[in-house]
């Protein structure tokens, strides 16, 4: 229309239209392109987001659940985008959190590892978080690492503390400053509150410090122990008083201790060791000053050894010289001491080699002793008398005989042993300076001599026996060959026996046997001259039997007449073969029938055995009941025999003999009477003495004449008086002291002190 108006040409019009058309198409095309681009952009954004989401998810190790979803509904891009964005936001936030956690852990790890090893560069110095791997696994791994590190740290801390305590104890023992020591290792260690440096380096340094201290400790310990040993030796040498030793007790008791055992504070400190050292040197000084004494001591030790082994010490002169040398200071005493010790060792060695022989020698000497004892014993006539300990001596004799029999063999063995020894060593075996072999020879010679002597004695005895037999043929009586001997022996034995006697100070009863015994002993020799006649045995037996009877304590027994006849009877009997029963036991004396034997016993048993039996025979005295029976028997026997002996008893002769030849007993009785009071003996036991010595009335005048004590006289007049006497004779100490005498029939004498 416009064109009509304008009249545009068709051509133009067409052209215009075409242009129009082209322009329109262009706009359209442009719009479509724009839309297309927008869509593509959208898609791109979604893809981007999804990709990021996927990355994050993969980094965090989680499965991206939504990706598939977006693939399926691809229709609504904007929706999709809107959906994906919050997810992405969420994931991003989570990732950030995770990363922070990682960072934290890593930081810790780094700190710890820093602490642990300052020098070595762990993977640290700055924190790098691997963004790509933030998965839980990795996180856990990191945690584990952290834990391990933490553990290591505590371990190290403990180790450090251990080391510290060790160091502390070491320092204590060694007397060092602990603080200073650890400061040297690391200053932080000294800080008791703050953290301690626990790096490898520190620990290493601590280790080395401990090592160092230990070495020091061991060194010092050795030194101390050496000192202690020396000290002990010195103490021992010089007999240091315990008090002084006590101070160093803690040192010496550690002498064998191991390193661990020494824990006492300061025991290894410099000062203490110096102190001990000082003491030791003091002792050393002392030792030097005492060296002389020591030398002497050692020497006496050596002499002791020599003495024990019966060797002769040959060191004397040398020693004197050595001592002088020490005094003058010319010789080092230690050197001499050493020498002596060497000698001692040598002597000990020799002593050891001699030991076997010495033992044999001991045995030999003991045997010799036993032999000589046996000889002595064999000479003892009383050896078989029963008495206290008699069985023991018998046993000993038996043993001794066995030993003596073994003697020759012993000597032989000893001789060969000694000879071998001498051959081996080429020196003589000296026993106390005398050659043992010569000793043995001497002994052998002595032995042979003894043997000969014995033989000679046997011959003599045989000869004597023959002589007696001849006499017997001549005189018809049979005096026992041993009688003269027993008579001779009697007194000697009784005196000797008195020594072995049981001694009782107050027990007057026990003491009495002593004075008693010599009388019978003396009696017999006095009577012996009369033996020349045929009556000899009568007299002797007579008096002795009487003695025995009296001694048995027939206090109530017997009128003198009766007794006398009884004695006579016995004496008559003696002529019968009964005479000799030499070794009948003493206890048999209690039986009147065995009386004759008693004579022998009396003569022989005057030694120690007597005093034992006497108190026994006294016992019945004290108990009247027993006594009665004894006396009964006594009285009976003579009665039966009375008729026979009376005519034959040579009483008058014997009596006159006695008065003439035995003044001694008579005097004895007189003395006894006079001394009775001041003497300790109680007359009870004495009573028997006058009885036998005055067997008949004829002697009475003599006694009465010489004896002032009326008591004695009464004995002879009647049994009643005897009885009384016996009852009165006992005095207490006070009575004796007061001089109190029992007022008898006529004489009353109360002596006042």
């Amino acid at each position, binding site marked *: 229309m416009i064109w009509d108006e304008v009249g545009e040409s068709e051509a133009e019009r067409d052209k215009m239209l075409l242009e129009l058309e082209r322009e329109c198409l262009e706009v359209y095309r442009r719009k479509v392109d724009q839309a297309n681009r927008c869509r593509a952009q959208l898609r791109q954004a979604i893809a981007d987001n999804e990709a990021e989401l996927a990355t994050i998810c993969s980094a965090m190790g989680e499965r991206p659940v939504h990706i598939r979803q977006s693939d399926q509904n691809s229709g609504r891009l904007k929706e999709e985008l809107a959906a994906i964005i919050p997810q992405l936001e969420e994931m991003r936030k989570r990732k950030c959190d995770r990363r922070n956690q990682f960072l934290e852990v890593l930081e810790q790890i780094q700190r710890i590892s820093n602490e642990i090893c300052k020098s070595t560069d762990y993977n640290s110095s700055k924190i790098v978080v691997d963004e790509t791997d933030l998965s839980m696994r990795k996180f856990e791994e990191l945690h584990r690492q952290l834990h391990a590190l933490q553990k290591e740290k505590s371990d190290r801390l403990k180790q450090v503390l251990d080391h510290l305590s060790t160091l502390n104890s070491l320092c204590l023992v060694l007397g060092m400053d602990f603080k200073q020591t650890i400061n040297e290792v690391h200053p932080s260690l000294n800080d008791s509150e703050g953290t301690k440096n626990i790096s490898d380096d520190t620990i290493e340094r601590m280790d080395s410090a401990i090592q160092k201290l230990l070495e020091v400790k061991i060194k010092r310990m050795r030194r101390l122990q050496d000192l202690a040993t020396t000290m002990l030796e010195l103490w021992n040498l010089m007999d240091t008083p315990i008090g002084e030793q006590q101070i160093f007790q803690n040192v010496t008791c550690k002498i064998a201790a191991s390193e661990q055992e020494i824990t006492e504070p300061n025991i290894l400190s410099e000062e203490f060791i110096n102190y001990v050292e000082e003491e030791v040197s003091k002792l050393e000084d002392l030792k030097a000053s005492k060296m002389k004494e020591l030398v002497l001591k050692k020497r006496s030790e050596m002499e002791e050894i020599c003495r024990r082994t019966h060797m002769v010490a040959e060191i004397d002169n040398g020693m004197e010289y050595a001592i002088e040398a020490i005094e003058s200071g010319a010789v080092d005493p230690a050197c001499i001491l050493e020498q002596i010790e060497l000698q001692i060792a040598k002597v000990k060695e020799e002593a050891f080699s001699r030991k076997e022989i010495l033992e044999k020698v001991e045995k030999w000497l003991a045997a010799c002793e036993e032999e000589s004892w046996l000889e002595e014993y064999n000479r003892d006539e009383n050896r078989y008398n029963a008495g206290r300990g008699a069985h023991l001596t018998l046993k000993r004799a038996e043993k001794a005989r066995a030993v003596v029999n073994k003697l020759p063999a012993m000597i032989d063995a000893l001789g060969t042993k000694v000879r071998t020894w001498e051959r081996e060593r080429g020196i003589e075996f000296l026993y106390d300076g005398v050659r043992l072999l010569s000793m043995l020879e001497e002994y052998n010679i002595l032995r042979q001599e003894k043997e000969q002597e014995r033989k000679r004695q046997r011959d003599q005895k045989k000869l004597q026996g023959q002589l007696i037999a001849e006499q017997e043929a001549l005189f018809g009586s049979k005096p026992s060959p041993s009688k003269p001997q027993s008579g001779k022996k009697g007194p000697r034995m009784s005196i000797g026996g008195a020594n072995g006697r049981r001694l009782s100070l107050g027990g007057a009863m026990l003491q009495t046997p002593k004075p008693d015994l010599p009388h019978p002993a003396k009696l017999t020799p006095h009577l012996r001259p009369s033996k020349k006649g045929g009556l000899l045995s009568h007299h002797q037996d007579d008096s002795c039997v009487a003695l025995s009877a009296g001694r048995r304590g027939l206090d109530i027994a017997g009128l003198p007449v009766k007794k006398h006849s009884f004695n006579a009877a016995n004496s008559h009997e003696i002529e019968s073969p009964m005479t000799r029963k030499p070794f009948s036991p003493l206890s048999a004396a209690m039986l009147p029938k065995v009386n004759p034997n008693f004579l022998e016993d009396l003569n022989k048993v005057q030694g120690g055995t007597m005093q034992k039996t006497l108190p026994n025979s006294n016992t019945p005295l004290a108990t009247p009941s027993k006594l009665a029976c004894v006396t009964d028997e006594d009285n009976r026997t003579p009665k039966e025999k009375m008729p026979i002996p009376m005519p034959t008893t040579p009483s008058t002769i014997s009596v006159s003999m006695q008065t003439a030849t035995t003044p001694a007993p008579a005097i004895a009785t007189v003395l006894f009477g006079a001394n009775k009071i001041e003497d300790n003996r109680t007359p009870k036991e004495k009573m028997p003495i006058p009885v036998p010595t005055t067997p008949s009335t004829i002697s009475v005048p003599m006694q009465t004449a010489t004896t002032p004590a009326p008591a004695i006289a009464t004995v002879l007049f009647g049994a009643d008086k005897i009885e009384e006497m016996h009852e009165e004779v006992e005095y*207490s100490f006070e009575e004796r002291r007061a001089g109190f005498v029992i007022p008898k029939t006529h004489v009353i004498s109360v002596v006042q002190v």
Partner: protein
Amino acid sequence: MTGVLPNSAGRELSNPPSDGISNLRFSNHSDNLLVSSWDRTVRLYDASANVLRGEFFHGGPVLDCCFHDDSSGFSACVDNTVRRYVFSSGKEDILGRHDAPVCCVEYSYAAGQVITGSWDKTLKCWDPRGASGQERALVGAYPQPERVYSISLVGHRLVVATAGRHVNVYDLRNMSQPEQKRESSLKHQTRCVRCYPNGTGFALSSVEGRVAMEFFDLSEAGQAKKYAFKCHRKSEAGRDTVYPVNAIAFHPVYGTFATGGCDGYVNVWDGNNKKRLYQYTKYPTSIAALSFSRDGRLLAVASSYTFEEGDRPHEPDAIFVRSINEVEVKPKPRVCPAP
């Protein structure tokens, strides 16, 4: 001597008698000690103070003494007299006479009588209240088989030991007859007899180092308990020396007893358990007498030669008072009242 024996022997009393001590006794009321001696005196000491309180002279050696009460006492003298002394005034009465030296004296609190034993073979009882005329004081005289050597009292029982080893047991209320006539179970002369404090028996010592423990009870069971033991002996180099046992003293509390011998030792025994409890160190010479104080805390020991070996030089006579430890006198295994 004091130098030789320091405290181990106990305290030695000053002013001891100048001759042998025959007996000593503690008072029943105090620690006073009465001592009789051969030097013809009776002395009164205060043992705890070690003071000589009094000295009373006699006509002859005094063989025994005893307290009446704390103010007076009795003595038995060789001049045959029995005397009574009043300590405070020194007044002296002659209570009576025997025909021979009087060797022991006892005062019975139960009977109020003085009993004396003499070598004239009699026992006499006296009433101390009687005036000096002996006829009035004498209660009775009782013949003994032998010379009296030692007597001892417990309650109404009186034990008399004489020479010849006789032992008579009397009841003080009936003195006409001995209640029991015995023979010493020891074979040797009796030295001392002392009754158990519980009154069941007596201990008897002999010159031959032995002590017999006897019982009054005559039944078989009672007699089965009696026994004797050896003591105060010495065995030296195979020689046995036997010493007389001069003194026995019972502990008033424990009933254990001490014996003293011529060996100079004092032994303490537990009679029930047959054990020796203690031996004190040796005294210079024989132990002549022993006495425990009333409470048993002190033991007086007379170390004085008793003439057992006749007249010979000897250590000076001395009295030691020793304090007793309970361990020394207390029965050990179980506590028993008395033997």
